[in-house]
């Protein structure tokens, strides 16, 4: 099995910041809006480089989404930036009507998603955002796994015409994706081949899935590991092809089980090839304050949880 390594840990939001700056250089129509969180979203460099194309909207997310829709109508490519909770739940109807239904070329860029936001607690830790966004027709939903992939995703959505939700996070995580790897929206990445169990993971959970694969390998189990960075549209072929070989699947995400990646995979399999599935995700509950590490452990999103889910699902074959 292939071993993945990394030289440094970096936050995915900084990948977004670098990608946004590059997007601004590549396309003069790229504009950015922020709701009073420039530093947290790493939008400082874009703002400094293109002050006239940067819109500080204050703590007014609904207005930000509407303005983005208007900018897009006029031919601009707006990237909105705030925390994931305020990018989704706070403005769901604005996104629904002015962006998704109206098919506007708006990129909703959402940081601090999931439990790893940490100490701020449940008011800020959204684990429902993927669910809300994937349920909107016309909306593409992307959750990249590391710094390099987030940067590449930011540039890929610049080229894509239509509404996109780009989800990333706060903590520093292993940066293992090759810097030159092209990001193809809707195309899953096969990270490791294996015959015993398919592990599909998204976002921060991809690295943990790789760690779990290593541990399983040491136990004599060959796991096939797939990075699903695009939750919608789902790479149906990649998943079906893998389970045709392994006949069982584990899904991993920093999100509620309801409405997340696992839910999409379960629907796909149920309609095509009913297959045993285990979901490493958060049960129907809100988070709480704590360090990211403590929270991931308490809410069952650690490497060991993936290993245990794999062992369990293999027995269900």
């Amino acid at each position: 099995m292939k071993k993945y390594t990394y030289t440094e840990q970096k936050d995915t939001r900084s990948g977004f910041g670098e990608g946004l700056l590059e997007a601004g250089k590549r396309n003069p129509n790229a504009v950015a809006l922020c709701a009073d969180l420039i530093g947290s979203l790493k939008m400082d460099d874009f703002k400094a480089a293109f002050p006239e194309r940067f819109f500080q909207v204050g703590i007014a997310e609904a207005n930000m989404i509407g303005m983005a829709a208007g900018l897009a109508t006029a031919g601009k490519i707006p990237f909105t930036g705030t925390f994931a909770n305020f990018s989704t739940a706070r403005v769901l109807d604005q996104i629904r009507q002015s962006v998704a239904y109206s098919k506007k070329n708006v990129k909703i860029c959402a940081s601090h998603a999931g439990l790893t936001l940490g100490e701020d607690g449940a008011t800020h830790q959204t684990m429902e955002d993927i669910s809300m966004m994937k349920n909107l027709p016309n909306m593409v939903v992307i959750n990249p796994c590391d710094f390099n992939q987030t940067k590449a995703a930011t540039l890929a959505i610049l080229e894509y015409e239509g509404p996109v939700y780009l989800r990333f996070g706060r903590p520093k995580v292993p940066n293992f994706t090759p810097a030159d790897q092209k990001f193809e929206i809707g195309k899953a990445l096969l990270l490791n081949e294996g015959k015993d169990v398919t592990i599909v993971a998204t976002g921060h959970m991809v690295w943990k899935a790789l760690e779990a694969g290593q541990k399983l390998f040491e136990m004599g189990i060959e796991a096939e590991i797939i990075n699903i960075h695009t939750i919608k549209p789902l790479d149906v072929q990649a998943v079906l092809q893998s389970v045709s070989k392994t006949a069982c699947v584990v899904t991993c995400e920093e999100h509620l089980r309801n409405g997340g990646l696992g839910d999409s995979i379960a629907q796909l399999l149920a309609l095509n090839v009913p297959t045993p599935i285990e979901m490493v995700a958060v049960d129907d509950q809100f988070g709480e304050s704590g360090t990211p590490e403590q929270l991931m452990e308490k809410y069952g999103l650690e490497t060991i949880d993936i290993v245990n889910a794999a062992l369990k699902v293999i027995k269900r074959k």
Partner: protein
Amino acid sequence: MSNIQQLQQFATQVRRDILRMVHAVNSGHPGGSLGAADFLTALYQSVMERKPGFDMMGKNEDVFYLSNGHISPLFYSVLARSGYFPVSELSTFRKINSRLQGHPTTAEHLPGIRIASGSLGQGLSVAIGHAQAKKLDGDRQLVFTLHGDGELDEGQIWEAALYAGAKKVDNLIATVDYNKQQIDGPIQLVMDLGDLRAKWEAFGWKVFEMQGNDMVDIIKVMAEAKAATFQQKPIIILMHTQMGAGVDFMMGTHKWHGQAPNDQQLQNALTQLPETLGDY
């Protein structure tokens, strides 16, 4: 015939269209549509500088956003009669497989529509975004909007108002259809808007007031408003109208907000509005 008379005749035909459209499907919103008919007629037939055909981006032309999307029969009639799509298509309003959805949408690619509206309070933000894009492009044309007065209950309106005042979005002319009625009754009872002029002025806007069912006043005030653009302030027009204007039994009540006339009521209404440009 004077320009004013031509506009009045156009508005009369638009009112006939509105009534026939909502009657045909026994649904829709005639009250607000009738009240704003003179304004939208003036906007598309006289005030706005438009290019032929429909360009979604609206570059180098004035653009309009309807924020209170429920007055779609009015919007559709004015768009059709301004050449955006065939007038005959008005007969498909609210019917299955139509481009003329209950509330306006871009999903059906109906020329003239730039955003979906219906869920209230969103159009001002969208218009501000378009206005900012025009500034980036060095485009000196204007962005116009229309809002219901009841719509001003929505918080997003005031987020947008704060932004446009603070950031001096001065290529924008918003209009409030101040008919003082909303679904549940008179605004004063449902949610009193208080001193609306003072509110907008406090947010940094330049405020005009206009008699929205008087074509002469509309043309005059809109010219004044246009002359006041690019002076560091967004502009809002408090447009005094009568809900149901043009049909005697529909005026002065909120009853016709979302109710269509029956056969007899339609005939009564149409006798008050002579056919001027030919029914669809």
